């Protein structure tokens, strides 16, 4: 780790022990050993999904958008009537499910990356400013955070989709609104305790400006926490994106997104279950994997965050 030594308030051996014994169970979900094993299966699933997104044009056997009405609603190959040419079957427009699934990973991951950068970044900034300055600034910003927690961001997301039109920009903005408050609250807490440390006082004595202290002394010390928050929130973003797509407020068709695919198959669940159920399995698998991975990363980088 390239974090300055001052970042770790406890000796290394102690940080491995859970800070709050009552919550240690989360750390022990997959195994019982105190040092958790590296979660290889989730890492593999994440790697597969990321490569699907990156190399979609090379991996997808068909176009995700072109319709072949002659081949509509073919079941997956292991079901009667299925064929090996469409491994996961086709939808009501004869589009290959596997190809749409592969391209759908793109949307989920791009939205996740952008929304976490934007929403997480704003949360980081607000958290550092509120924590560092304290007083009235802190008070106002934290009331805003409270407000964001009380009022469900999903309603604003729907409103944005209607007023600004559907699209990547709207979606990212909407999901960022969902994220910033929880980032700001946790980061502020970290900054409050960092502010008391000697190296901040020394920097002040040396005449560093507030901006410089925040940028070069506080920021590097909250990056670990930030990374953990980002990982723990990937799942939240993916589910939010899928839900908004499902509600007709995501990326507009014909771009394949997992949420939209589930919604497409909803009316035909009796005759063609695979159109709805397969994309849902992909969502669940990816979210499950990033959550398990995020829990592990938190235990490695910042065990104090376990109460999240």
């Amino acid at each position, binding site marked *: 780790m390239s974090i300055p030594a001052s970042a770790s308030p406890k000796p290394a051996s102690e940080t491995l022990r859970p800070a709050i014994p009552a919550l240690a169970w989360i750390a022990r979900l997959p195994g019982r050993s105190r040092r958790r094993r590296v979660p290889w299966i989730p890492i593999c699933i994440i790697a597969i999904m990321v490569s699907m997104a990156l190399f979609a044009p090379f991996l997808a056997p068909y176009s995700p958008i072109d319709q072949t009405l002659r081949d509509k609603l073919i079941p997956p190959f292991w079901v009667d009537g299925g064929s090996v040419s469409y491994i996961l079957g086709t939808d009501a427009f004869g589009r290959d499910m596997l190809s749409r699934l592969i391209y759908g990973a793109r949307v989920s991951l791009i939205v996740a990356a952008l929304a976490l950068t934007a929403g997480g970044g704003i949360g980081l900034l607000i958290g550092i400013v509120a924590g560092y300055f304290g007083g009235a600034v802190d008070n106002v910003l934290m009331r805003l955070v409270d407000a964001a*927690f009380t009022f469900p961001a999903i309603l604003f997301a729907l409103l944005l989709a209607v007023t600004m039109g559907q699209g990547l920009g709207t979606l990212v903005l909407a999901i960022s609104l969902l994220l910033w408050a929880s980032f700001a609250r946790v980061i502020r807490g970290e900054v409050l305790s960092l502010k008391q440390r000697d190296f901040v006082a020394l920097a002040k004595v040396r005449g560093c400006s507030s901006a410089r202290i925040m940028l070069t002394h506080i920021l590097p010390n909250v990056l670990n926490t930030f990374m953990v928050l980002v990982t723990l929130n990937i799942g939240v973003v993916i589910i939010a994106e899928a839900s908004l797509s499902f509600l007709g407020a995501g990326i507009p068709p014909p771009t394949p997104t997992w949420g939209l695919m589930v919604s497409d198959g909803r009316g035909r669940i009796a005759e063609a279950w695979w159109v709805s159920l397969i994309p849902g399995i992909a969502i669940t698998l990816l979210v499950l994997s990033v959550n398990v991975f995020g829990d592990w990363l938190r235990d490695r980088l910042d065990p104090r965050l376990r109460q999240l």
Partner: protein
Amino acid sequence: MKRYIVYRLLQGVVLLCLVATIVFFLGRLTGNPVDLMLPEDATPADRMAMIKALGLDGSLFQQFTIFVGNASHGDLGNSIRMRQPAVEAFFSRLPNTLAIIPWALLLAMCAGIPLGVIAALNRGNMIDRAAGTVAVLGIAMPSFWLGILLIYVFSVELGWLPSGRMGGPEHYVLPVITLGAFLVAGFMRLVRSSMLEVMESEFVKLARIKGLSESVVIWKHCLRNALIPVLTLWGVFVGNLITGAIVTETVFAWPGVGRLTYEAVIFRDFPLLQAVIILKAILILGINLFVDILYAYVDPRIRLA
């Protein structure tokens, strides 16, 4: 106590004004809101009439005063699609949503609380890990997909339960499970961690020293105290359920305010969506306020903090 209530009431009013202002300006963000409010086949004469009626030829500030004035009389515009006042549409659908929310909350508590207690008592062993896996899975499954999965299994394959619409008690089963499921995991985690914390405390040790039976210690002394954090978050849970109902009611064609929200989105019915958001904000803030005041009354630690 009085000071606390006044403070919380003011906070709620400020928040509500904030929501209404954001809704107002978002409607004007992309040009003339008349384009959002009129059906696509409206004539230019209709357009002019509406601009006059809403005072949109005035300055932004004048428009805002008209909006606030109308809103304070309970007039939030007319739904384009349903050709009736949006507020009326909301209140005619609200009872249907309120018919499933208490059941979903009850289900989440009945499943989540015992699961959390059992997990805490079996800390670290197989049962605990099984309960933990259920929680992790519950968080990872999008609820719209869970609803469709339940329809596939119980309506299509087994034919036991209806797949949607309102009706007799059997119509409630799948929507309530779908809506309650995403809270079960949250309840379980919360109860488990607060149980473990309480079990370490002095008064529980004292209860054991007094020779009380283990079941009295666990269920009376521990659980009662472990439930405090769960109950203080009750307002937040209801807020979650109100938004969770959007997806659930859409999946099950349930004629409540959640489905109304979805319809407002897909038919681009801006006045309806605007009204639904403001009314839901009032509902959520009201419930939160009520719960907070109730707890401040019951537990003095909250109002003094």
